[in-house]
């Protein structure tokens, strides 16, 4: 077992796959010589050389076009979009091209590619560098959407994403880069579409993902010790494919559902989860489905203001306490 930060796990994950498979290449802005703006990819250029690890111009459309065209013709490329907010300048390549090409060509074209990106808030970067864009991605048929919450999951899910034959958006929570955890030795490979039950509980189910996972877990402990409310916490890990089974089983057991979402409220993934539960196991529910999200606002920059927006441990505890009464 080694201690690894979530940030270091990024480099480890890419290296694991590049060592294994010569068809894996990695490109993005400042990712090679400088090792990335989050310093998550340092060492890769040194190990794999400039043929496989490439610095690009500030041309997100060209970056994603490159990985798409390369994936169509035999490679398994990885692109970095530095901040997930920047998907807005290259959304056509993602939403109109990558997501639809296999379908439109009746299965002729395969796109085994991964786009990794720094997602979410918490670093006081303001409205254009803090967004949680998981909903943008989930709303587009043809994209897989993965969000690890721990260093080990990051490596395991990343490996699964690289080995997958469909386009995967791999969303790393920027606010988790500094978090650390034990990592098992050897190759780590998980499967997409498998949630993890992070805490077993009987009174209510909390479904969450990414940077909200540690907060939900902490809230669950406080609710248990302080309120005697025993929450089950599910880390969904990938939004597409979605482990609906894990969610439905848990809610059928606990009879209550809360979601904890970093994204602004409207059309968040939690709404989708709520609508599945309200359709399929309505009669198992004992009370309202409650979503805890960032309010439907752009994110403010100042620390005190940003802290007021993204669901905090205290906010999660308050809402669940209030709604379980």
């Amino acid at each position, binding site marked *: 077992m080694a201690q690894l930060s979530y940030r270091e796990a990024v480099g480890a994950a890419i290296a694991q796959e590049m060592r294994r498979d010569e068809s894996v290449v990695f490109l993005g802005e400042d990712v090679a010589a400088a090792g990335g703006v989050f310093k998550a990819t340092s060492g890769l250029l040194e190990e794999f050389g400039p*043929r496989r690890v490439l610095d690009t111009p500030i041309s997100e459309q*060209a970056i994603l*076009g490159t990985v798409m*065209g390369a994936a*169509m*013709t035999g490679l398994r490329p990885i692109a970095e979009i530095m901040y997930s907010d920047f998907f807005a300048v290259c959304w*056509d390549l993602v939403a109109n091209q990558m997501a639809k090409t296999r379908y439109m060509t*009746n299965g*002729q074209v395969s796109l085994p590619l991964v786009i990794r990106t720094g997602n979410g808030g918490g670093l006081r970067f303001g409205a254009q560098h803090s967004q949680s864009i998981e909903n943008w991605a989930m709303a587009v048929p043809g994209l897989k959407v993965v969000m690890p919450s721990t260093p080990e999951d990051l490596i395991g899910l990343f490996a699964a994403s690289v080995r997958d034959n469909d386009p995967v958006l791999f969303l790393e929570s920027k606010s988790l880069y500094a978090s650390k955890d034990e990592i098992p030795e050897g190759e780590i490979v998980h499967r997409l579409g498998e949630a993890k039950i992070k805490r077993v509980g009987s009174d209510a189910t909390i479904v969450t993902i990414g940077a909200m996972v540690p907060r939900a877990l902490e809230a669950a402990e406080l609710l248990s010790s302080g309120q005697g409310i025993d929450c089950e916490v599910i880390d969904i890990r990938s939004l597409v494919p979605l482990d*609906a089974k894990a969610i439905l089983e848990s809610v059928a057991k606990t009879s209550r559902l809360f979601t904890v979402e970093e994204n602004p409220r409207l059309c968040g993934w939690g709404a989708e989860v709520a609508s599945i539960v309200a359709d399929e196991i309505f009669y198992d529910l004992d009370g309202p489905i409650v979503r805890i999200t960032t309010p439907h606002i752009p994110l403010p920059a100042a620390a005190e203001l940003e802290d007021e927006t993204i669901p905090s441990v205290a906010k999660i505890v308050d809402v669940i306490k209030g709604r379980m009464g």
Partner: protein
Amino acid sequence: MTLANAAHEGFQHNLVIDRDLQIKLYRRMVELRQFEKRAYDLFLQGLVKGTSHLSLGQEAISAAFGEAMQQGDWTFATYRGHAHTLSRGVPMAPVMAELMGRADGLMAGKGGSMHLTSVEHGMMGSYAIVGAHLPIAIGAAFSSKYRNSHQVAVCFFGDGTTNIGAFHEALNLAAIWKLPVVFVCENNLYMEYTSIYDVTAVEHPAADRASAYGLERLIVDGNDPDAVYSMAIDRLSRARNGEGPSLIEALTYRQTGHSRADPGKYRPDEEVARWLEKDPITTYRARLVVNGASGALLDQIDGEVMAEVDRATEQAKASGPPPVELVMKDVWSDGGSGWRN
């Protein structure tokens, strides 16, 4: 300088193009022409649904590139991609069936006329969002370079496409990485209904931008298959030899409206007349005859092509609607569309 004159400042080819190849080019152009005319008839009969964008008048470009490209090379085209698809050797019947939304269509009706794709023939797709395929084409070229496979990506697009951001990003990246890609701008004078001159800061929307990417300024008469072929051979071989990308502006004219719904009324009569005189097929036929080809042979080709188009039409018509199960297939690599367990 008017555009008609501009054509004359085009590339002076010195490749000797032999008779057999010229006959091939002629046959291909006639195929493209008759196919498109038939597609238009079928639209009038209500058998081609949705939309379709014809290449009538622009046949020389796709025909010449089709001959110049090698097996393994890749074509990336726009929604105006019927001709480029056929020029890579894709048979007519499945293309016709795709326009008609039939089960035997090239993509079983799932893509439609704007998305013709046949990976088997190196036809890597027709893209309906203006500009999107330029970055994708450089990705294929990247892959060729990475695998040292000497394949070349050829990316066709219109004059209007030169004003969108993706054009700029793709050209720059292709240039700095010296990727084996040939960009071919088919300047047919119009975006949809708006003249390219009204919306572009330079006279030659592609050629006048080449220097912005450190590339040569290349203009060719896009209605002359010999000229296009010569330039294609030259630029494909440079790409194959590691000399990097080219950006070619081929001057041509869209003889019909933008898409099936458009009568093309915004085009001055005099302009249409002038360009009909420069029709690539009639002018080429005249050239071949002057150079000694037999009129009877050319007539025979015309007849063979018509028969081929008739056969393809019958085949396409004989195909039924696509099975509705296809709707839920091939979103993912597992063949299905499931997003949950």
